[in-house]
């Protein structure tokens, strides 16, 4: 079986809590050594369940999980040797920071000297040198989070799981901690499986992102691929901002398709995930890939649009157009020296390349992204 380089393999994993509905539907996912893999999905998508099965707190209903090519379904959590950072940190409130860090070393019967050395090294790693004697309640949220990260790494596990560890922090702290986690991962070469619903964290940290929804991996690829080449409407919608035009395929040219959208306009788009002529399709287009007032003939798709709203955001101007029957078409106009000067109510032409416009399936109920 190929996959000797993989640290973790989920093989045909299914999970059901009530015996009727599947929370995880036939999951096959491999995690390579030293990889930073993020499982990204909305709440209730089954992503935390996957993590809990890997940690051993939930049994898989069907299928097998392999850790270093050993099946671990029958291995209890305390013998898996996997580090984990919990959402609420789960620091032991009655123990000091140093005692918290020493807990996994105590159970492994480590000598006093070695223990002291490791605790000191771990505290230094997260820049909490003088905090060993404090109790968790005496630390701020960010400090507690760092202790939790240090504790999950102190016994040198090959694999560390992180369950939304930055969820409770404010924005600035979250960004700082994000880079801290990234540098720790790069320095230690440890494999990380990270669960989050925050796409910006996922894009920043990950080597690969597995976009999860409805118990199924929708796409698993590097951040830039997931962002720039989403494979279906859910991924396009969930990651980043996205304009959608719905229509029907009228011409199939192999690589590209022509789709009739509202107002009878025909858009040329890259064929990604559509059936043949006559089938419905969602066209996905990133707001930063749209050009206002393009040179005539330079782009295959140019349509008249009405400017509905302008929002000044400093580095760019967020503009809302109505075009092809969509009144919520967002374009980000960069605030550069020669940007198009338009005002509300102006009729302009906007256009885009065929390859930036991806013809995808129809997502039944698009999730509004945050």
């Amino acid at each position, binding site marked *: 079986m190929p996959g000797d380089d993989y640290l973790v393999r989920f093989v045909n994993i299914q999970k059901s809590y009530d015996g009727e509905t599947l929370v995880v539907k036939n999951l096959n996912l491999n995690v390579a050594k030293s990889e930073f893999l993020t499982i990204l999905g909305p709440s209730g998508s089954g992503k935390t369940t996957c993590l809990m099965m890997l*940690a*051993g*707190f939930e049994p898989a209903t069907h299928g097998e999980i392999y850790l270093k090519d050993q099946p671990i379904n029958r291995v*209890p*959590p*305390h*013998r*898996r*040797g*996997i*580090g*984990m950072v*919990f959402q*609420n940190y*789960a*620091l*032991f*409130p*009655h123990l000091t920071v140093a005692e918290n860090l020493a*807990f*996994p070393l105590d*159970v*492994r019967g480590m000598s006093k000297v070695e223990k002291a050395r490791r605790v000191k090294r771990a505290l230094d790693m997260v820049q909490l040198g003088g905090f060993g004697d404090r*109790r*968790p*309640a*005496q630390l701020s949220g960010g400090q507690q989070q760092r202790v939790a990260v240090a*504790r999950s790494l102190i*016994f040198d596990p090959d694999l560390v799981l992180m369950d939304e560890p930055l969820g409770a922090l404010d924005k600035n702290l979250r960004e700082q901690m994000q880079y801290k986690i990234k540098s720790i991962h790069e320095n230690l070469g440890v494999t990380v499986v990270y669960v989050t619903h925050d796409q910006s964290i996922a894009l920043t940290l990950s080597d690969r992102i597995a976009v999860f929804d409805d118990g199924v991996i929708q796409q698993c690829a590097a951040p830039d691929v997931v962002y720039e080449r989403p494979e279906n409407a859910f991924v396009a919608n969930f990651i980043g901002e996205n304009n959608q035009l719905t229509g029907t395929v009228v011409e199939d040219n192999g690589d590209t398709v022509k789709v009739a959208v509202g107002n009878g306009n025909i858009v040329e788009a890259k064929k990604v995930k559509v059936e043949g002529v006559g089938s419905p399709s969602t066209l996905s287009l990133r707001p930063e890939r749209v050009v206002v007032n393009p040179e005539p003939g330079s782009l295959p798709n140019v349509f008249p649009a009405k400017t509905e709203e302008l929002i000044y955001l400093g580095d760019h101007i967020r503009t809302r157009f109505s075009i092809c029957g969509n009144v919520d078409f967002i374009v980000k106009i960069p605030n550069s020296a020669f940007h198009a000067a338009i005002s509300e109510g102006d009729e302009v032409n906007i256009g885009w390349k065929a390859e930036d416009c991806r013809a995808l399936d129809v997502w039944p109920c698009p999730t509004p992204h945050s």
Partner: protein
Amino acid sequence: MALPPYATPGQRIWHYLYLTVCTLVLFFLVSPLIVVIPLSFNSTPFLHFTPEMLTLDPNGYSTLWYKSLFGMCDAEGASLWTSCTDKWKVGAFNSFKIAIMSTVLATTLGTLAALGLSRAHLPFRRTIMGLMISPLIVPLIITASGMFFFFAKVNLVATLPGIVLAHTILGLPFVVITVTSTLVGFDNTLMKAAANLGGTPTYNFFKIQMPLTAPGVISGALFAFITSFDEIVLILFIGGPAQHTLPRQMWSGIREEISPTILAAATILVLLSIGLLTTIELLRRRNERLRGISPA
């Protein structure tokens, strides 16, 4: 609770009325306990304040009844008024013995029961809980007579194991309730974290769960102790001469020989209860501090 500056006259009147009523209620509750204390230093064998006591004349006070309580009969006049007896001492000893034994049993069983009851998937949880709590709800006299007939069949009446078992059943609900409520606040991800870090279930129980639930266990144990220590009905039904406890002696003291000795005993019991309740409160605060609920 201070009045806000915008309070209307009506609100002011209500506020002071409220304070007065609260004070009166507290006074009503506490005064019978407090009045016992000076009376127990009475120098005459009557249960009322003598004119000497009211004028704070030192001759009106004595520790006579405390001496009598501890079986010291050399005090002048004591033998005149009280039968010189060591029944109080024996009673106190028996009370402590029975209370300690039943507390240990009730705490162990109650803690285990609470741990089981806090599991999410336990079937018939409400029924089991209801049965455990029932000694608190059923009138004591019914429990006592029921136990008497049952214990009579299995030869436990008038034995030490019998009364210890009976008091265990009485103390159990307190332990179950306090430990269960402590476990409700217990964060189960801590046990997951401990398992994840490599601790075996047993190790984690003693290292994480026990220390964090200990305040609940201890306050439950103290309640169980007080319940057993103050208990009279079951003793009357099930206890024999060899289980002559302090409340039993107070009971016969009142019925047979009304002397302020009983007031001395009551004073000591009140002080003991205050001590135990203070301990409970201090433990509760320590627990909250450890969990970071109210950083002082």
